[in-house]
């Protein structure tokens, strides 16, 4: 790395408020920024300009809040998972029920917000990349609602393992493009979406599904997802009379995690844990845990921790969960890691699958395999804490989409 850390930290982190990033050029310390081909630069700069203007307009947020309440079904409840807590034997485990949102995951919070931007910018055509298919479904959903043309790029591998979501997108009127280049997963879908955007930049709005991509995406996706943390903060105070002692969320690109974490960053006593996909175990190299085992680099428009080899080639990732199968991570997480404000850990496929079954049996809630990673870590963490403490877990999505994957691991065809 040739970027001096102190140089950029000085621009973002003021002594009064180190958490006010990104700076005007989209940097979180040495991370973030804008790294795209020249053809897309004007579009990215225009989006930044439009978002800065609209996000200062109270009417924009009134429209957003209206949709959150009446279309998504917010606020999502906090739920005290008593039997799971008892099983863990320690702190109270509390779930933030993003799985109850319309379309079944947190992804809709972001697509509603970006659809408002697309509408304002007058773009008739939407593109999106998707891994698990949840963001693809959420994009197809808002496109249907606004009558916009929608194309969703999805790695050929993911098309296979998330067949139900592919069909949902098609029902919603989206064109699902199966991407056969590279490793045929989420990163390749994102490459293909960027190529489409460069080709159709005049009439197309690209809805990125996580807090990655070039600035302003990591900022605006975070702002839309931060409704999770704002609600959770208020609900904790109202229902438990205090803030949670710890927050836990899974980290793919990092949107559900930053959405939960961001409103708590200034609450120094709230411990923060992001859980990456450990796959077969971080030590095996077969995982999707760039914060745990990657190094700084540049991918898909921003500087962050990524998984790449000594030649700078992006490595293939491995996770039972399609939504976590990504070699990069949002730049704000990279910064929070280096700043020491958040801890990043990983759990393996096996641990996540165990947690998937456990939550299903103990609480009657089938979690998404992504969210099961957070549950798995929360159980371990709660066990080290006392019963008067609380661990708040982002249950980012429901597991219906993963039934086939789990069944086939069990040797059953559904």
């Amino acid at each position, binding site marked *: *790395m*040739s*970027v001096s850390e102190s140089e950029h930290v000085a621009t973002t982190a003021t002594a009064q408020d180190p958490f006010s990033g990104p700076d005007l*050029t989209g940097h979180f310390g040495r991370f973030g*920024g*804008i*790294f*795209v*081909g*020249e*053809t*897309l*630069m*004007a*579009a990215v*700069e225009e989006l930044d300009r439009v978002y800065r203007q609209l996000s200062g307009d109270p009417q924009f947020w009134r429209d957003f809040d209206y949709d959150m309440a009446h279309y998504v079904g917010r606020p999502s409840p906090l739920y005290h998972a008593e039997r799971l807590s008892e099983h863990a034997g320690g702190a109270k485990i509390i779930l933030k029920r993003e799985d109850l949102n319309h379309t079944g995951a947190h992804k809709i919070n972001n697509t509603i917000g970006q659809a408002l931007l697309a509408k304002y910018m007058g773009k008739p055509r939407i593109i999106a990349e998707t891994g698990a298919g949840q963001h693809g479904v959420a994009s197809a959903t808002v496109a249907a609602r606004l009558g916009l043309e929608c194309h969703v790029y999805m790695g050929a591998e993911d098309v296979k393992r998330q067949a139900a979501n592919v069909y949902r997108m098609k029902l919603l009127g989206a064109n699902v493009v199966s991407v056969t*280049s*590279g490793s045929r997963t989420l*990163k*390749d879908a*994102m*490459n293909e979406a*960027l*190529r489409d955007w*460069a*080709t*159709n*930049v*005049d009439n197309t709005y690209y809805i990125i599904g996580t807090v990655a991509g070039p600035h302003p995406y990591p900022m605006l996706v975070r702002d839309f997802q931060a409704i999770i943390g704002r609600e959770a903060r208020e609900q904790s105070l109202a229902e438990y009379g205090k803030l949670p002692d710890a927050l836990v969320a899974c980290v793919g690109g990092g949107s559900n995690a930053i959405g939960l974490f961001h409103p708590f960053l200034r609450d120094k006593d709230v411990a923060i844990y992001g859980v990456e996909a450990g796959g077969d175990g971080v030590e095996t190299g077969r995982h999707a845990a760039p914060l745990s085992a990657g*190094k*700084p*680099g*540049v*991918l*898909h*428009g921003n*500087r962050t921790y*990524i998984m*790449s080899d*000594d*030649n*700078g*080639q*992006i490595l293939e990732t491995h996770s039972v969960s399609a939504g976590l199968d990504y070699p990069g991570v949002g730049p704000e997480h990279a910064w929070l890691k280096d700043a020491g404000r958040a801890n990043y850990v990983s759990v393996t496929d096996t641990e996540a699958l165990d947690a998937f079954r456990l939550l299903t049996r103990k609480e009657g809630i089938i979690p998404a395999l992504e969210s099961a990673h957070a549950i798995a870590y929360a159980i371990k963490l709660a066990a080290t804490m006392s019963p008067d403490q609380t661990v708040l877990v982002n249950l980012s999505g429901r597991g219906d989409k993963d039934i086939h994957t789990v069944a086939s691991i069990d040797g059953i065809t559904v």
Partner: protein
Amino acid sequence: MSRISKTIAAAKQAGRKVLVPYLVAGDPDRDTTVALMHQLVSNGADIIELGVPFSDPSSDGPVIQLGAERALRQGVGMKTVLSIVSEFRKKDDKTPIVLMGYLNPLEVMGYDNFVSQASSAGVDGVLVVDLPVSEAKELLALTQPAQMDIIFLVAPTTTEKRLQGICEHSSGYLYYVSLKGVTGAAITDADSIAERVKALRERTELPVVVGFGIKDEASATSMAAISDGVIVGSALVQKIGELTDSGARDEAAVAQACELIGRLRKALDA
């Protein structure tokens, strides 16, 4: 004056358009790339853009993606790329070489390592597709003292404000991207390109070379007529891909792959 500037100035003086082929380093293998480069020069290439293969070439179309995949299957990394340049330089110390690729390989190697090793291998310029001027300060601080040119792209979407920064920091030449899209797409609107390039040449002394979508005599001559020269990528990489398909790597096969460049040279000089 850099080797790139000298070459373009000499061509201008001779009333000749520069012809810049692009090929992927290590496609189909290291030694054949060196042979291809020499053949391109003898067919009339003025400058060579040597692609550094990257796993996630998000500004490239399918043809160059496949070229990069073929090179990556041979395990080609920056070390091999630079060894190709050194090998080429043993027999040719005149033809400028521009490395074209994506930023992450440079990030991982470290900018200072990259610039010093590339310089000593004989690289004259570098074009990093996903490194806009606004993020290029650190790299520029290293390339300038090493007299290495940084070539930036100008696109049909580039705003006036951005153009200012690009002109200020570019050296060697400006690479005008003829179309909105990725490499290998087809040019559809030659008139508006002509207008844009004309405006560009009025505001900068830098030579302007047009790339993307140039695949035959017609597109090459029409784009060269309005600029200082043309870059030919996908059409050549497609031919080089046929070497892998056939397995042939001998002189005749190399000559066959580069035949297009000889034809374009003739058309440009006619």
